Structure formats: C-alpha cells, structure tokens
C-alpha cells in the first residue's frame, strides 16, 4: 500500500516537473511573433525615400508611407497592452507592408520627378537665356519706357538668382523662380513688342521718304543725308548713291516722331539744312541746323493741341541739328543727331544749305530686324 502510494507520488512529481519545464516552451510557441522585421523594413524604406528627397518630389506618397509607419507602431503599442495570448500583430504587419509599398512608390516617383524637373528647369533656363539674348540684342536698341525697363531689370535679377539655386540642385525652388522670371520677362517682352510693332507702322512712310530723297539726289545730282534712327546711322548719298555712313547718337527717347519740346525725341520727316554753324556759333563743335518744324510737323502739332492729346501750353520745339560731340555710346541728345567730331568735319564738307536731310525710324523692316 505504501509502495503504491510512493509510486503515485513519484509519478505526480515527474508529471509536474515535465509540465513545469514544457509549459514555458509551449507558452512561447503559441505566442505571436512580434513584427520587428517588417517594421524595421518599413523604417529602412522610409529612410531611403527621405534620403532621395521624396519629401520634396513625392510629397503625398511619402506622407502616406509615414502615416502607415506611424499606424503600424501605434497598433503594435496597443497590441502589446493586451493580454499576451490575445495579441494579434497582423494589422501591424499590414501597415508596415503598406508603408514599404508607399515608400518604394515614393522613391520611384522621386527618381522620375527629380529627373523630369531637372530636365524641365534646364529647358526653361535655356529658353529664358534665349529670351534674354533677344532682349539684350535687337530689343535693347529701343528706348523703352521705365515701367518696361524695370520689369526687365527685375526679371534679369530673378533669373540670376534662379541660376544660383539651380546650380545648388534645388530644382523645385529653381523651377518656381524660373516660372516667375518667365512671367515677368514675357510680360515686358510683349509690352515692348507692342510698342515696337506700333512704331513700325510708319515703315511704309519711312520707305517712301527715303526713296524720294534718294531719287531727288539722283535726279538733281546732289548730296542727301538719311538718318536711320534704329540703326543709329547717318548715311550720305551723292547722285543717288550711298557714299558714306557715320555712327549717330539721337534723342534719349528717339522711338516715335517728335511731338513737342522736351520730349527728347528726334523728329521724323523730310527736312533741309538751313544753317551751317561752326566756331562760336555752336557749342557742339560744328552743327547743321535743319528746318524742324516743317509744315507737316506744325499741322500735326496743331491737330494734337486741337484734339487734346497735347496740352494747350505745349511748344513744338525747334533747334534740331546734326552736331558734333557724339561718340558717347548712348543716345543722349534732346532730339538732335550727334556725330563724332571727325565725322562732323566730313559731313560739313559734303553738305550745303538746302541739302535734304531725311530722318526715318528704320531702313530695315520689322521682319528683317526680328526675323529670328
């Protein structure tokens, strides 16, 4: 009886020890595996996306990836608060996988978008360079109103800034600046072209005047002078043939026909030399006074007064000359045509009182100047 009792006790203890030893093993076996690998993977994918500037180039996808990562961590924390056997990490794994997926998408989009943006900004940069070349070229010859010049100056400055930002590989910022530059420069460009196109409406008239002047020189076998304001040139014709040309400087605001005293515009029309001045008769070395205002100028001036486009107290002006002291590298006169003194000597010898002087906007047409 006692032996049986002892055997039972032994069996009990053996069973108890087996249970005690195996219980934690079983316990650990049935516990859910924490999703560390998945969450770490999500963290690494996010880091990779961020290192490649996905925050900038794929903002929405990157934000989504971040939100999924935060959700994974938050659900994981909540699951850990539950009783150990009731924990379920499947949602954590799900969020972590979604985060990886979105990070990878963000990375892909970043690679494509950044390459696209680099290409786009490079193209914009080149196009604006061309636009500026045009503005610095043919367009820069025209005296533009302050409003347009200021816009061009602002555009140029912003363009320089955009180039610096572009060279730092900050393409998003550079793109924004280039868009702004484009808008400013194009607006200035369009306004300038509207003015120039309007100015060139006088081209047929200029061509006629020029033709008449050359024909007169040919028929009467005399000398004639043609001033091309756009080219900044003074041409001498003898017997209808061009024999000389000089650089000329004009009124500060030469574009347009002279309307009144003080508008700093060089008049346009067919004139004649009425006086040759030298020595103490002029402060500009030598001068050829022309008959501005002629009858047409006077009629136009009176009409402008009558229709109110000029105030009643306006003066038509006068004393328009071809004179010396030129060569300043700018259009600086109040309406006269300035030549360098050595050219003034030459023209002075070639012309006489009564020699025709025709001043026109341009010998070249608008298309010839801006064909490119």
């Amino acid at each position, binding site marked *: 009886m006692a032996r049986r009792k002892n055997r039972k006790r032994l069996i009990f203890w053996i069973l108890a020890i087996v249970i005690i030893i195996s219980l934690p093993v079983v316990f650990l076996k049935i516990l859910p595996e924490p999703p560390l690998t998945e969450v*770490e993977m999500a963290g690494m994918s996010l880091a990779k996306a961020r290192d490649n500037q996905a925050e900038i180039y794929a903002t929405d996808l990157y934000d989504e990836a971040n939100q999924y990562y935060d959700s994974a961590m938050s659900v994981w924390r909540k699951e850990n608060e539950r009783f150990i056997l009731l924990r379920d990490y499947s949602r954590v794994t799900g969020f972590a996988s979604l985060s990886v997926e979105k990070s990878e998408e963000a990375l892909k989009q970043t690679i494509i978008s950044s390459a696209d943006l680099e290409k786009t900004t490079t193209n914009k940069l080149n196009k604006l360079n061309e636009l500026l070349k045009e503005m610095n070229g043919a367009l820069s010859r025209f005296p533009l109103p302050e409003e347009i010049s200021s816009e061009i100056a602002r555009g140029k400055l912003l363009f320089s800034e955009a180039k610096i930002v572009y060279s730092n590989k900050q393409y998003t910022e550079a793109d924004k600046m280039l868009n702004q530059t484009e808008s400013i420069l194009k607006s200035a460009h369009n306004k300038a072209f509207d003015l120039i196109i309007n100015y060139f409406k006088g081209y047929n008239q200029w061509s006629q005047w020029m033709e008449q002047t050359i024909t007169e020189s040919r028929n009467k076998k005399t000398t004639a002078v043609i001033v091309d304001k756009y080219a900044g040139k003074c041409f001498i014709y003898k017997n209808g043939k061009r024999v000389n040309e000089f650089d000329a400087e004009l009124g500060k605001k030469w574009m347009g026909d002279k309307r009144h005293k003080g508008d700093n515009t060089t008049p346009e029309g067919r004139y004649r030399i009425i006086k040759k001045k030298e020595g103490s008769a002029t402060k500009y070395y030598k001068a050829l006074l022309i008959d501005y205002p002629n009858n047409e100028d006077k009629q136009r001036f009176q009409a402008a007064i009558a229709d109110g486009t000029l105030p009643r107290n306006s003066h038509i002006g006068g004393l328009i000359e071809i004179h010396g002291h030129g060569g*300043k590298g700018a259009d600086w006169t109040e309406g006269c045509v300035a030549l360098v003194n050595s050219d003034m000597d030459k023209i002075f010898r070639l012309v006489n009182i009564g020699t025709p002087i025709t001043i026109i906007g341009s010998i070249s047409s608008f298309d010839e100047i801006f064909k490119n």
Partner: protein
Amino acid sequence: MKRKSLMGLVSLMMLLFLAGCGKVPQDKIDAAKAAIETLRAAEADVYVPEEFANLENQMKTIMASIEAENSKTFKNFKEQIVQLENIVASTGGIIENANEAKEVVLGETEGLFEQIKTVLAENKDLMAKAPKGKEGAAVLEEMRNEIAIIETSVAEAHSMFENGNYKAASDKVKAAIEGVQSINTELQEAIAKIKRK
C-alpha cells in the same frame, strides 16, 4: 500536501514571470525625443541634414526594437536604454556641428553683404564722378533704375537674413552682386567713353 506543492510551483512560475517583466523606459524615450526636438530647434535639419536624418532613423529603429522587446514575455530594455542614452549624448556634438555650419553660411552671407555694400558705394562714387550734362545724365538714367531694383532685392535679402534664412539670403545677394558688378563695369566704360570725347 499535493495541493500545497502545486500552488508553490505555480507561485514560483508567476514570480519568475513577473521578475522578467521590465518596464518600457518611457523617461528615456521622452528624453531622446526631446533631444531630437532640441536639434530641430537648433536647425540641425537644415545645416547638418545627414546627421539629423541619421539620428531620426536611429530613433525609429530603437522605438521598433522597444516594441519588439515589449512584445516578449521576459522583457529586458537594457540595450535600448543604452541606445536612447546615446541619442541624447550625441545631441551636443550635432548641435555643435550645426552651429559651425550655420556660422560658415552666416559668415559667407555677411561677407556677401559687405561685398555688395562696397560695390554699391563704388557705383554711387562713379555716378557722382560722372560728367554732368546731358550725355552723363543719359548714361546714368539707364543705370539708376537697375540699381534701385537691386537695392530693393538686397533689402529683401536683409530681412531674410534677419529672420535666420541665411541660405536664401545668400543666394539673393549673390545674384544682386552679379547685377551690380555688371552695372559697375558698364558705368566705368560709359564714363570713360564720355570723358575721352
């Protein structure tokens, strides 16, 4: 007796179980998070972005490993505590590096402001020295407008600088210097031409 022995065993198991339950080191986590915020306030994300991103990544990894440890029956956060302490400890060095990088940009930008001040003053001198009269006025009029626009841009750069946006201020001043120097050259050439005649 049998029941007593069984109870004893279960109690021992429970004791072991409870003894293995470490607590999440919340104070260390909070300290590390606060350290990262301090770095952000010191603009480490702007001036030493790689170091900052590296630390943020480390923090993410530590937080994941804390949750992994927290998922276990027998928890031990010793390793994570050391890592969190390392985060806090590394903050000082990163702030120092950020400040150094900021000082470099600050110094460069201040230098650029000095440079533009000099060129602008030089331009003013040139304008004062320019021949008076119609021809001088015509040349100067063209430049004056551009200079005014550049001065406005420099003023904008100054406000950016005062708001601590040194990098943007620096780019703006660099562009302004380019513009002012080109005007300076034009001005010198134009004045020389006028004087020659």
